[in-house]
């Protein structure tokens, strides 16, 4: 038994009721240095998952794009106690995975290992987070690899379109920062930059760590308290950087990213979205499921099933603390660029003019409820959920009341969700494709800014 407590009796036809769903019991406490800790026992397999979240994301990069990301990566360049070679060998030998990364707002660590290795791996995790040495030779190697990867990413429209879109939508706001950095900014980074970024942002207060799996909570609490208590509290000067207002688009805009050898056009059509704490978060996901979040969604039905223009069309809301984005995303052969964009816009228009009916709303509600449990099945998923709860300040009622909240979405409410959160105009387009063939088409949708995929992305468009 893992996550959903339920009375499973006999046969098919037995409807599992919403009120049967509960997040398993967990403990939460805060160390004197401000580090928030979550513990949840799960004994199905003799494994433990760890997730940590820290206020050290790309929003703090300043003009050194890629700094947060490289700092997170460099944590694994070793510590005094665990120099890199020893670190890699010890983790590999026990089959443990420990990865560190930066996202837009936060940095994170996630780990998975056998329960019997908990003392060793927790000691390593603590050392990586609190005592990294940022070896300059290792850093030089990492930087070279990163620079080559940045160049390689330009070979795939799918891997770069997201950061072009964020720059276009968020402009000068820190949510437009490019997590991976750019060739010119990464070229300039030094271990001194990394060290400085680390000291300013890797602090226990404002961070959380969750441990889920096969352990005894009482013992684990003692272990965690002992090893993480010496991590010194800090003060983050610009903690609230992302609360600055985000400028709203004033009209349609098209960013055309030219890729000379492109055979297809990969495109986003987007607009401002919602922040994670929006009270309509669940309702918005249900409507988005219907619009572009599943196979039979309006978008996929029209662009793929009815017309065969693409292998897939979808839409999503990406929610951050202080804002978010909405995008329609798909790709099509260069010569079908125009019908694909037109159809996407037509479907968006249809959502506003025709709305949704009872039957399709019920279907979307059933679908999100039915697909919810597998999202919280493993220890890793649960560990991640706990740190997300910390970061976005929501609690287990999100899980425990999920079904109820979904069920409460009426047709009338659906209508207001559509008109409030789904854009009708002032759309932001990013097209990655062969400009020579599609520039004329792009001009149909708004003023066009053309850039070259091989060139350095601009500060803002």
């Amino acid at each position, binding site marked *: 038994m893992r*996550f959903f407590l339920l009375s499973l009796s006999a046969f098919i036809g037995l409807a599992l009721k919403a009120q049967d769903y509960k997040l398993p019991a967990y403990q939460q406490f805060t160390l004197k240095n401000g580090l928030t800790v979550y513990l949840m026992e799960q004994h199905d397999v003799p494994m433990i998952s760890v997730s940590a979240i820290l206020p050290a994301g790309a929003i703090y990069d300043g003009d050194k794009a890629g700094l947060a990301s490289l700092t997170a990566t460099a944590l694994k360049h070793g510590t005094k106690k665990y120099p890199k070679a020893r670190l890699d060998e010890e983790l590999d030998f026990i089959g443990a995975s420990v990865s560190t990364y930066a996202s837009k707002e936060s940095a994170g660590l996630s780990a998975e290992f056998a329960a019997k290795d908990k003392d060793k791996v927790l000691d390593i995790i603590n050392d990586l987070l609190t005592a990294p040495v940022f070896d300059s030779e290792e850093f030089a190697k990492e930087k070279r690899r990163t620079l080559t990867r940045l160049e390689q990413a330009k070979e795939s429209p799918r891997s770069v379109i997201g950061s072009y879109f964020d720059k276009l939508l968020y402009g000068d706001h820190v949510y437009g920062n490019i997590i991976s950095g750019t060739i010119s900014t990464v070229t300039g980074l030094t271990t001194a930059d990394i060290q400085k970024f680390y000291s300013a942002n890797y602090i226990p207060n404002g961070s959380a760590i969750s441990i889920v799996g096969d352990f005894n909570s009482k013992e684990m609490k003692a272990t965690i308290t002992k090893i993480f208590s010496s991590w010194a509290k800090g003060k983050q000067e610009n903690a609230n950087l992302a609360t600055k207002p985000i400028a709203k688009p004033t009209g349609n805009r098209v960013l055309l990213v030219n890729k000379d050898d492109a055979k297809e056009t990969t495109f986003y059509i987007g607009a401002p979205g919602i922040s994670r704490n929006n009270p309509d978060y669940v309702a918005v996901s249900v409507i988005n499921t219907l619009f572009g979040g599943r*196979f039979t969604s309006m978008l996929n039905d029209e662009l793929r099933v009815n017309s065969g223009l*693409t292998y897939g069309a979808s839409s999503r809301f990406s929610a951050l603390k202080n804002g978010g984005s909405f995008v329609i995303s798909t790709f099509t052969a260069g010569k079908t660029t125009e019908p694909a964009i037109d159809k996407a816009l037509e479907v968006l228009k249809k959502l506003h003019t025709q709305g949704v009916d009872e039957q399709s709303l019920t279907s979307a509600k059933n679908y999100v409820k039915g697909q919810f449990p597998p999202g919280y099945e493993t220890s890793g998923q649960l560990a991640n959920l706990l740190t997300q709860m910390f970061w976005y300040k929501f609690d287990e009622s999100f899980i425990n009341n999920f079904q109820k909240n979904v069920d409460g979405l009426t047709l009338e409410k659906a209508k207001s969700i559509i008109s409030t959160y789904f854009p009708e105009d002032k759309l932001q387009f990013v097209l990655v494709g062969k400009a020579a063939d599609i520039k004329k088409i792009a001009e149909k949708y708004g003023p066009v800014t053309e850039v070259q995929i091989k060139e350095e992305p601009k500060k803002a468009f």
Partner: protein
Amino acid sequence: MLAFLSFIASNHKHIMKKILFPVFVLLGLSSQAQIKADDVNSFTLKNGMKFLVVEDNSIPNANMYLFYRVGSRNEYQGITGLSHFFEHMMFNGAKKYGPKEFDRTMEFNGGANNAYTREDVTVYTDWFPASATEVIFDLESDRIASLSIDPKMVESERGVVLSERSTGLENSPWRMLSEAVQAQAFQEHPYHWPVIGYEDDMKNWKQADLERYFKTYYAPNNCVVVVSGAVKTADIKALAEKYLEPIPAQPAPPKVHQVEPVQTGERRIMVQKDVATPYMYIAYKAPQATHDDYYPLVLLSDILSSGKSSRLYSALVDGKQQATAVFSSYGESFDPTLFSINAIAGKGVNENDLEKSIYEELEKIKKDGVTDKELQKVKNQKLIEFYNQVETINGKSNNIGTYEVFFGDYKKMFEAPDRYNKVTAEDIKRVANTYFNKTARTVGILKSNTAE
């Protein structure tokens, strides 16, 4: 087939290795909720359709994985890609549930689905709240019993798979390179062509091809079904008898008779694409899943490239910095396959130097073998892999089905621990010497300037 998650494994060398085994054998651990052979309930319907059921109440959901023994291996030139296209057509309407109704009905009942096609098999995956189990049986039985192939749907779906092919090529140089290498390595056996098919064949499939394919390969006796989740075996059996048993068995499909001739010399191929640095794909001929050498070769692959302390990563990415990435892969297949080593050259590195360094690492193993500690390390990693796989009901179904069709019996999954545990350092050295031979090697290089 689902747009958002979908992939087709058009290259069997990129399939992840899926190995499940009780690990207490390896590490002396006592494991709690260990899945055992006895936890898999099995029955076969009168029409030959085999069922494997795992009762698991950890979430109120269940899944159904249907493994059909058909893939691009069953095709011939002129209809390449048809197996994968057929996978798409299985969602486009049958007698009771017409076009679009399969997905609409499934999603209305809280279910989602996907499918994947490989060289050897086509697998359909349904994920649903356990309360919808009967609906899933109804949907599956309808399309297996009486698929209807609507010419209009054939045309729009053709556009979909052409887009799938094109977006794969557009977004990864590996796709283009692996197709080229595979075509060189296999000259007569059907592993010669890509699962997605040739573009011109894709535009040329006929209605009759599809109808014949359905009749020949989509027979209950050519299918293994795995169900895991909050279900009872007796209920699954009752539903299977009601919905699937009435579907008649068909004559066994024709055997794939081509045997790839022994390769007698190195083959090399160059491919042009505008890339930052060269991509390299080195492939050695290697045996199918039922061969005894399968187990030491899987461990050898891990020794070469699993983790930062692995041979190739530490020598080429970390040490000499000739590559930005390196990996090796070897997975289960019906017929003899490839063991591949893939690398992306670092900036300013001549790919010939990178290639030479890779061979040096292989020669070290051929000459000096591996250490006991290295061997123990990859055995330990297999343990973690196992736990990750049995942690979800989907991992259970996929692995049980894969063992049943590729290794001939799902019970082999429970023998695997012992097979891995028995692998010695001497075995690793022996298989390295047996398979890493220049004459059985195909080398592909993709780079910007192939004229130099």
